[in-house]
């Protein structure tokens, strides 16, 4: 284990090194982020004006579907796994992930799975066109033939996620440095431990539901067919039993990242560490009992509407604990506003806006008005873009000097932040208005009355997209050169990762380090 990386392409193909695998996950995620972004820009270009200009409606539907699938399963989830791979062993003082070969297997499934998913765009009948939530019977009776490939792609990316999650749990449970008890772990590690549990609990359920689809489509079963005694609503129940924990899978690690960054740049310890841990666990628990709030208009019994409404609103309590925690950490802090901090503060503010619109949607009677409108699109993009994407971006800027040993260009980072911040608000804030006015989601054409807001949204989307090109340039420029980073990188940051040199040696912590906690 003393020697460094192998030479050439086999370093990446055969690697068992958590840093190599983390880098591959992050680059793969970045590539998918741009692919999904191109799909989004096709959507926004078409919606720039009412009427059909650029694509036909079927292709438009393929774009909304592929955008969602690629962003959720290709961009956000692998980015968090990439960060987990890089940071968890370094933060807990482990030599590597617990099961290094399985780690590489988890990664390499993904390029194959997404090659197969993307290839459906070139198949007869086109790519999946039933939305990323693939409700039956749109995704069964009325699906294009490529749905079979979609199903198997979901199967293997699910296998990848489960193996990745098992690896993360084994690493955290088994490989912490002596003295690092559970309640002394960095919050990024804690949030990932809980996320990994969610992944193992719900990815198999996703596998189950796509299997039922496969059987209904090709083998004559009646799971989602009322004629045979099944029920299309059954699909929605099983899907959202996976789907709701899934949205927390895409946000809990973000909480961990932001909880690492804000104390560093506020120069104060996190206001309440244990309340953060308990709030994360509470959110994870609640995620299992709120799934039907996605289905208020489908025809649930009133008792169901009420239960899922109240349970959903309960989530605001632990989430509020978190938001106040971050704010209280900044309160009277000696704050500076480096790029990671800018993204983190924007995270706190904009994620809270997404949380509030979520509360509005949680109110069942109100949801009858909002359901399937652009208000919902605005809501979940406010939690995913400034939530998941901004936290990942913040994490990349925060840890990039540790990964490659060079400082990124701070000015360019700040410009990136402001362009992205303005771009996303210009894109998604007007969607609240078009949605409340009644504009339905997933349509290529719309009434003239929505034209102004849509035009603004489309301009914002291209601005946001352009900002990400700058991000890509900055990351590459930092890897290639730039000012050398110190071991600590920032001013007195907390955590074991800052005790090793920058760039971090290929193998860190062959021997468990000494661990002293400040809280």
């Amino acid at each position, binding site marked *: 284990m003393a020697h460094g990386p192998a030479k050439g392409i086999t370093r990446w193909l055969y690697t*068992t090194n958590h840093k190599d695998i983390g880098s591959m996950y992050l680059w793969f995620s970045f590539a998918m982020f741009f692919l999904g972004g191109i799909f989004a820009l096709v959507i926004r270009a078409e919606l720039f004006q009412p009427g059909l200009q650029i694509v036909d409606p079927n292709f438009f539907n393929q774009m909304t579907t592929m955008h969602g699938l690629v962003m959720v399963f290709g961009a956000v989830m692998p980015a968090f796994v990439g960060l987990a791979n890089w940071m968890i062993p370094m933060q807990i003082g482990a030599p590597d992930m617990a099961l*290094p070969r399985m780690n590489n297997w988890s990664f390499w499934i993904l390029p*194959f799975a997404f090659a197969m998913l993307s290839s459906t765009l070139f198949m007869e009948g086109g790519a999946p066109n039933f939305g990323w939530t693939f409700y039956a019977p749109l995704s069964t009776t009325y699906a294009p033939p490529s749905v079979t490939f979609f199903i198997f792609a979901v199967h293997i990316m699910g296998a990848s996620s489960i193996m990745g999650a098992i690896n993360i749990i*084994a*690493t955290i449970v088994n490989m912490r440095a002596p003295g690092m008890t559970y309640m002394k772990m960095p919050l990024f590690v804690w949030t990932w431990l809980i996320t990994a549990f969610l992944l193992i609990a719900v990815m198999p359920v996703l596998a189950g539901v796509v299997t*039922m689809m496969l059987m209904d489509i090709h083998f004559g079963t009646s799971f989602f067919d009322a004629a045979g005694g*099944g*029920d299309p609503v059954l699909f929605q129940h099983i899907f959202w039993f996976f789907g709701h924990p899934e949205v927390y899978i895409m946000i809990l690690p973000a909480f961990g990242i932001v909880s690492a960054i804000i104390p560093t740049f506020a120069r104060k310890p996190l206001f309440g560490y244990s309340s953060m841990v308990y709030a994360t666990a509470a959110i994870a628990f609640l995620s299992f009992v709120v799934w039907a709030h996605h289905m208020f208009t489908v025809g649930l*019994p009133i008792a169901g509407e009420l239960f899922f409404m109240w349970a959903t609103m309960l989530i605001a309590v632990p989430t509020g604990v978190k938001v106040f925690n971050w704010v209280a950490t900044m309160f009277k802090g000696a704050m500076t506003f480096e790029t990671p901090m800018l993204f983190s503060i924007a995270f706190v503010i904009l994620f809270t806006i997404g949380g509030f619109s979520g509360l509005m949607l949680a109110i069942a009677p109100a949801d009858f008005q909002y359901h399937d409108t652009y208000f919902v699109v605005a809501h979940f993009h406010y939690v995913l873009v400034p939530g998941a994407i901004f936290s990942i971006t913040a994490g990349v800027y925060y840890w990039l000097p540790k990964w490659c040993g060079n400082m990124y260009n701070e000015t360019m980072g700040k410009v990136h932040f402001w362009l992205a911040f303005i771009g996303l608000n210009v894109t998604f804030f007007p969607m609240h208005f078009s949605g409340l006015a009644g504009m339905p989601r997933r349509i290529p054409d719309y009434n003239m009355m929505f034209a102004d807001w849509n035009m603004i949204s489309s301009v914002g989307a291209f601005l946001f997209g352009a900002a990400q090109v700058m991000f890509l340039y900055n990351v590459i420029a930092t890897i290639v050169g730039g000012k050398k980073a110190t071991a600590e990188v920032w001013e007195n940051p907390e955590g074991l990762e800052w005790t090793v040199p920058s760039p971090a040696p290929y193998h860190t912590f062959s021997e468990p380090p000494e661990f002293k906690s400040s809280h």
Partner: protein
Amino acid sequence: MSGGTYYVPEQSRLPIWASFGLFLTVFGAANWINGSSAGPWLFFAGGLTFAAVLWNWFSIVISENMAGLNSPQLKHSYVIGMGWFIFSEVMFFAAFFGALFYIRTLALPWLAGEGDGGASSELLWPGFEAQWPLMTTPDMAVNGEEALRKGPEQSMSWPGFGALLGWLPFWNTVILLSSSVTVHFAHTAIKNNNRKQFNIMLGVTVLLGFIFLILQAEEYIHAYQELGLTLESGIYGSTFFMLTGFHGAHVTMGTVMLLIMWLRSVLKGHFKPDDNFGFEAASWYWHFVDVVWVGLFFAVYVFG
């Protein structure tokens, strides 16, 4: 080589080949199902690749362990990994059990007009009545013999205590429960360094697994040929065959795993009183499959 206490393997070709094999398998399966003539070839080529990789992978892990590379800490990683893998399997079955309970207690009564669906039941499926096992589908209630989605002619349900001894699911339950006991005896035997008893008990377990699978096949043939119960027999057929089918697939996996453990012991003398997790993991899996069966026995058969 590891400089520290935890063995981090060198570069390995296994993961990329495993990914390729897995991809080829599912890509072939999708092509096959969609009617492409290349499908079966791709599928079997992928399956063989995948199987070959797994064979290699496990041999390497076993030889690493025998070479003393695996510290107690590393072995604990395997224990954690297996435990959480089984939990993921539990959740996979939970999806199908959940579907069954939802259909039985909520969806079918609603289809028959209960709840606040208003006139929709009368308009869509007039004359449909909720029952379980669902012999008369909504389609049949409306379209009679013209129906595309027909129920089974007979179900697999509880025949009453009088007919218990002639009821195949009962014997399958006896067989699987016994096999859980024998595999536990095998575990005790290896812990007591009793190789002979270990081999016998594990051999008996594998044999019981095979018998279960043969009886299950017999049941399926009986269902298809005599009961008019197929995968296409409405929601009853769907849930029956998917639940018992996935369980059967897991019994097959478990039997193969235990058979390999048995061969390792008989042919190679593997496993020590204090170092036998390969076997123990397979036995955990076997107990899990057994517990799922108990759930199935009650939910699908007895209260079917």
